[in-house]
């Protein structure tokens, strides 16, 4: 009987200990394998080419295709990010604007496809990769204003917190869970208000900040 009670107490203790830890644990900060599902896009857009780091071997000769990326600022194309709730996919004209002068890749299949869309004046039906549920209101502008403009974080770090290391991707893939708990963990942390004052504040905790 005693041993029975002892083992019961031990088991119960273990259970409560384990579950209180489980209940206190943070949700995972990335998806299991760091990669969301692969999304088929009409054109396999190489983010690494555009936003990736420069390869020192690239001499800057425009006629020779570069091996590395071009370190283009995310917001050069996703112009909505700093002024709208949605980051926005660049209009086709923006792609063409550069590519009509880049002859070195003009005949590659992807660019040819791009020009086909342009000539037909048809918008490219990109698929959403980071698609939050429709009842969620995520505001890019607030986050960009806070972390890039007020706090002075590097663009790719700030964007990368939710979008992962896009510099290394071709077609963008989701690498963070984007679950509610994941958002909340960051909102609970204190972040510097700006680059100088040393004041901090945490993200809003109201349901209606994100739920619409």
């Amino acid at each position: 009987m005693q041993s029975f009670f002892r083992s019961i107490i031990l088991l119960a203790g273990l259970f409560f200990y384990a579950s209180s830890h489980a209940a206190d644990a943070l949700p995972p900060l990335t998806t299991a394998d760091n990669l969301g599902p692969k999304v088929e896009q009409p054109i396999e857009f190489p983010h690494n080419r555009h936003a990736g780091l420069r390869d020192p071997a690239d001499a800057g000769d425009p006629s020779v295709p570069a091996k590395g990326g071009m370190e283009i600022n995310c917001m050069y194309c996703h112009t909505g990010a700093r002024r709208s709730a949605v980051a926005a996919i660049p209009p086709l004209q923006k792609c063409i604007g550069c590519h009509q002068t880049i002859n070195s890749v003009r005949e590659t299949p992807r660019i040819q496809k791009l020009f086909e869309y342009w000539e037909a004046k048809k918008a490219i039906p990109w698929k959403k990769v980071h698609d939050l549920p429709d009842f969620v209101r995520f505001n890019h502008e607030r986050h960009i204003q806070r972390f890039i403009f007020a706090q002075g974080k590097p663009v790719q770090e700030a964007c990368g917190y939710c979008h992962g290391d896009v510099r290394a991707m071709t077609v963008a893939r989701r690498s963070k869970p984007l679950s509610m708990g994941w958002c909340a963990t960051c909102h609970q942390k204190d972040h510097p208000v700006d680059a100088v004052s040393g004041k901090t504040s945490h993200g809003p905790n109201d349901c209606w900040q994100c739920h619409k």
Partner: protein
Amino acid sequence: MSVSNLLENWSKVRHTHPVGDVPHEEYKWAMAIDLDACTGCNACSVACYAENNIAVVGKEKYAHGQAMHWMRIERYWDEDEREFPDQGAQFLPMMCQQCEAAPCETVCPVGATNHTADGLNSQVYNRCVGSRYCSANCPFKVRYFNWWDYPDQENAWPDEMKQQLNPDVTVRTKGVMEKCTFCVQRLTAAKNMARNEGRLVKDGEVQTACQQACPTNAISFGNLVDAESRVHKQWKQQQVELAEDAQAKDEYFTDLRGYRILEDLRAYPSVMYLERVRESAI
């Protein structure tokens, strides 16, 4: 929110009750509705349908009391049994009163309805499991439940009409509770803009859909904390205190017309009504 967070902040849960020690900081959205100006024309109600993706339920479901009008206009008659209602009717726009100590909030089993820092009574559609306890406990009965899957109903939103849906407002599916939000999507947008400029939202910068439409300006809406706001001035002038369940002025200044409905239930509504005035001599 982890357990330790929950425990640490337990005392703050729902502590937005309007007691002196926890004042509202930046915003406290509130309304004043002048029943003297209200003509009962229904413009506010239709504007609310347009802004908030409210489903048209159709005749049959209306008959079953399943209408979704977040803002309803009530029409009252005098009760003195005269042959004719020769002093007209009384109209009252009624919507969620955004109570400070909202009876609906405490009873929700999943915490789908909460108080925001701006003093709004939020309803999170996706969190709702549909126990309808909030509506059961609402004294004003201004919460509306999705008894049917309206997006799937044949004539609620035919394909063409789907294009009118406001992308800033969730389309509610069956089984969730909904109610007036004080057009929170507009408030959020206004706050966002003000934030970019490093300031607070100014009075008049944001209007609710009903206020915007109202042809007689009967509805005023704004930030009660902002001493410059019209709403603040109205509440102050009418001596209606947010944190009281009986107004001192009711005893001493009976010539003021501000009041809140069912105030004695201690829900502390955020909507002040101004009594209708009628000429006594004619």
